[in-house]
């Protein structure tokens, strides 16, 4: 009998305990935003600067442990578990849209005018816009003023400096990629030597038939980066160790990311940022000026908060006031024009913004992700390895590279 009572107690205790920890359902007037470990708390703080960004709705921000955890969560999310808005990378858009996890939004002309039109390329797929540009993600070249007294005007100037000072100043390389890797981060070097991933017409639309000239690009690679069929050591084929060596003063020029400018500033480097100089002074290399976006998910519609979530996107993520409040804390270059011009923007944010304004190219995932089979992200580092490590003929390898990029451009034609 006693045992029966105890069994009953066990069941009762179990139910009682479980009742207290039932997963809370999303409230009717609640908009759920997912972000990573830095953006999440910062968005939460920025939202708190105003009593309500969307009248009648509360906003809950869930921060994940890191960017990869966020990506994994959104990949696996369902209508019951997913957010209404996710703040993530622009190159998530094609995949998430293809998988039915994102919902499109339509901006009015005045809302569109708050951003540079090229910024919408990043967040669009099959001619539909899936998010609002939140912050600019780009790289720029920094030079060490203890080694180089003035900004180089051409690519050749940098190479000459490296060759002349390699031994005397124990230089380990001339220019290296510290931020963004040998594909995304190194696009400005491709571009400076004559190979843009794609080109634009005068009307701002992508030219679907133009690709780079492999003979010109290959010859420039041979001229500036090679000696006697081998790498001349100016530009390493890998990004490993670049940041440490630049900070240690053994590399005079480095391509750095805007997410880490404070690391350089903390070490005493001035924010003398610029695009990678081109073969001529008037043709600087274009860096990818991509954006991180606040994207609308298809789950918002399921939960009946789609219109409110769109209002939050426009009135907080896409407004001057919202981006100023957020970027004061986040310290990345804001995407919105009014916020970018705000006096509260720091010199690091401004330096990257200026470099992007001088020479940048939007990151179009639909082309770069390799719709024809091989992506830009894989083929670009492969080119550097083939030429700078294996010593292969740069013109021959440039022709292979062009074939891949050209095929991707054609394959993406209907999506852009």
């Amino acid at each position: 009998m006693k045992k029966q009572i105890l069994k009953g107690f066990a069941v009762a205790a179990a139910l009682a305990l479980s009742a207290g920890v039932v997963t809370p359902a999303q409230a009717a007037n609640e908009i759920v935003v997912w972000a990573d470990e830095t953006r999440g708390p910062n968005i939460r703080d920025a939202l708190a600067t105003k009593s309500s960004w969307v009248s009648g709705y509360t906003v809950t921000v869930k921060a994940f442990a890191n960017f990869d955890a966020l990506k994994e969560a959104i990949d696996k999310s369902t209508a019951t578990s997913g957010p209404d808005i996710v703040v993530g990378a622009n190159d998530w858009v094609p995949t998430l849209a293809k998988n039915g996890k994102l919902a499109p939004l339509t901006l009015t002309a005045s809302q569109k005018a708050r951003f540079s039109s090229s910024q919408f390329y990043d967040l669009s797929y099959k001619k539909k816009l899936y998010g609002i540009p939140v912050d600019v993600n780009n790289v720029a070249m920094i030079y060490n003023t203890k080694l180089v007294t003035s900004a180089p005007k051409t690519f050749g100037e940098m190479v000459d400096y490296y060759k002349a000072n390699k031994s005397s100043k124990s230089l380990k390389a001339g220019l290296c990629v510290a931020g963004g890797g040998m594909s995304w981060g190194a696009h400005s070097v491709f571009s400076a030597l004559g190979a843009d991933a794609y080109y634009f017409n005068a009307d701002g639309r992508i030219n679907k038939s133009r690709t780079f000239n492999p003979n010109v690009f290959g010859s420039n690679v041979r001229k500036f980066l090679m000696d006697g069929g081998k790498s001349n050591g100016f530009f390493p084929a890998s990004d490993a160790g670049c940041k440490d060596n630049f900070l240690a003063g053994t590399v005079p020029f480095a391509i750095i990311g805007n997410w880490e400018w404070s690391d350089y500033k903390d070490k005493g480097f001035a924010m003398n940022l610029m695009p990678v100089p081109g073969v001529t002074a008037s043709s600087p290399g274009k860096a990818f000026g991509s954006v991180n976006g606040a994207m609308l998910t298809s789950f918002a519609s399921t939960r009946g908060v789609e219109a409110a979530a769109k209002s939050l996107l426009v009135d907080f993520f896409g407004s001057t006031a919202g981006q100023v409040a957020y970027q004061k804390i986040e310290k990345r270059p804001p995407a919105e024009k009014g916020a970018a011009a705000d006096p509260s923007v720091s010199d690091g944010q401004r330096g990257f913004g200026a470099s992007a304004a001088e020479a940048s190219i939007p990151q179009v995932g639909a082309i770069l992700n390799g719709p024809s089979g091989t992506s830009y992200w894989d083929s670009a580092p492969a080119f550097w390895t083939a030429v700078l490590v294996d010593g292969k003929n740069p013109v021959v390898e440039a022709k292979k590279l062009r074939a891949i990029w050209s095929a991707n451009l054609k394959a993406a034609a209907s999506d852009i």
Partner: protein
Amino acid sequence: MLIQLFRGKVALAFKVIVLALVTALLITLAQSAFAQEQYIISLFLVATIFLLNYTYFSNKRVPLKFFVPGVILLSAFVLTPVLYTLVMSTYTYKTGNYISKEQATQRISALALEPDENGTAFDIVVGDYRSEPALLVSDINTGSYFIATTKERIEIDSSALTIDEYEVATAAPDFEPLEAGAISGSDAAKLRFKYSDPYFIAVESLNVGVVFRQSLEYLAESDQFRSLITSDLYSDNGDGNYANLNDPSDKLEPGWRDPAWFSNYLRLFQDDRVRDPLVSVFIWTVVFASLTVLTQFAFGLFLALALNKPIRGRRLYRSILVLPYAMPSIMSILIWGGMFNTEFGAINEILGRQIAWFQDPNFARTAVILVNLWLGFPYFYLVSSGSLQAIPNELLEAAAIDGANPRQVFRKVTLPLLLQILSPLLIASFAFNFNNFNLIYLLTGGGPKNQLDGEIAGATDILISYTYQIAFGSNVQDLGLASAISVIIFVIVASISLYGVRKSKVLESFS
């Protein structure tokens, strides 16, 4: 006293408390899984709750009490993933074919809205007009205002309206605005309001309406979509997409997970782009696992033999040799990765060379074997040392008395006996290294890989890292194909493990 702990009231109370806590946790997880529409997981948890309580609240099922936790954990973390992988390998399950057909159909319908040429948008107020859902629309470019219901569009003179400083109408006669907090979930947010056929106004955000037209309609009877612009029909193509009957390459997105039966397995043999890299990856996987076991065992045994004799500082040497084993392997691999760096790495500094360790296929493979040797030799040093102690000295002495020199004693007596003892461990090590994902992923990422020449797999990719690359390594994920390769890896590793178990005869006591 001790018996009281296991049989008395204290034990019963302890059991009840533990079971209550476990049951509470499982009920929570079950209802959470149910709420997230994970019905199979929820059902499994409920079954677990009943099984646990049934087993532990009875005095008659004693053997079951020992087996149940193991069986549940084995089912949850071994059998279920294997079964799930097996099932997924028979599906078209990749980027673009991720959700169910029902969800895909809903998404296609939701996406089939096309703004007009100018992207016309209006400031709106959502509310009711004479008890009907309606929008109070302000066209500030033309200074015109109207109320749109689902049936009609009623032009309203500005003099009858309340207009704010931005020229937006905020109130109109017979028009009752909805509270902001009620708009998103209201019927009005889902309706289409009259504009100019075929275009209508839909609520975009709380105060903006956009002019759209429907571009596709779903024909439920024939399970087809029809384009309202071109009249093209899109039918289920049997591969997880609605495809244009006139142009099969024109597919609607998103697609859905569709049964593909054995097509993923057939692709492994029939599709050149899958088969060719898979063959080279398989060969390297076998070579890598064999070389790893061979080098680790040889080096570990060599050190064990060297330190098997009493020498000064033996304890210190033994402690030092175990250090690589004590250090977290992830840290070791990353440090080695830095040391092998071409431009800045310590190894090239010492050699005075610019060896492209991770860019050249042969050097990368050498680096992988060397790093794995560093990570694994202490294990074989430890087991060899222990095994050497287990070999009776009489055998060695007898061999010496029979005239065998030390080399012959090692070759004819020590090594065969050691191999007899260690062969199950060698087989287990082979199976482990067959799937040594961490090393490859952290050290070389599977590379180098020359994409310019169309290489799909990297020079150091082993089957598991190649599978990971297919499943998660790029923007285009093919989970169905990756599952098929995983099943094959499972069969290989399970066979090797079974062979190892038989070799070690650990199951003999059960037979």
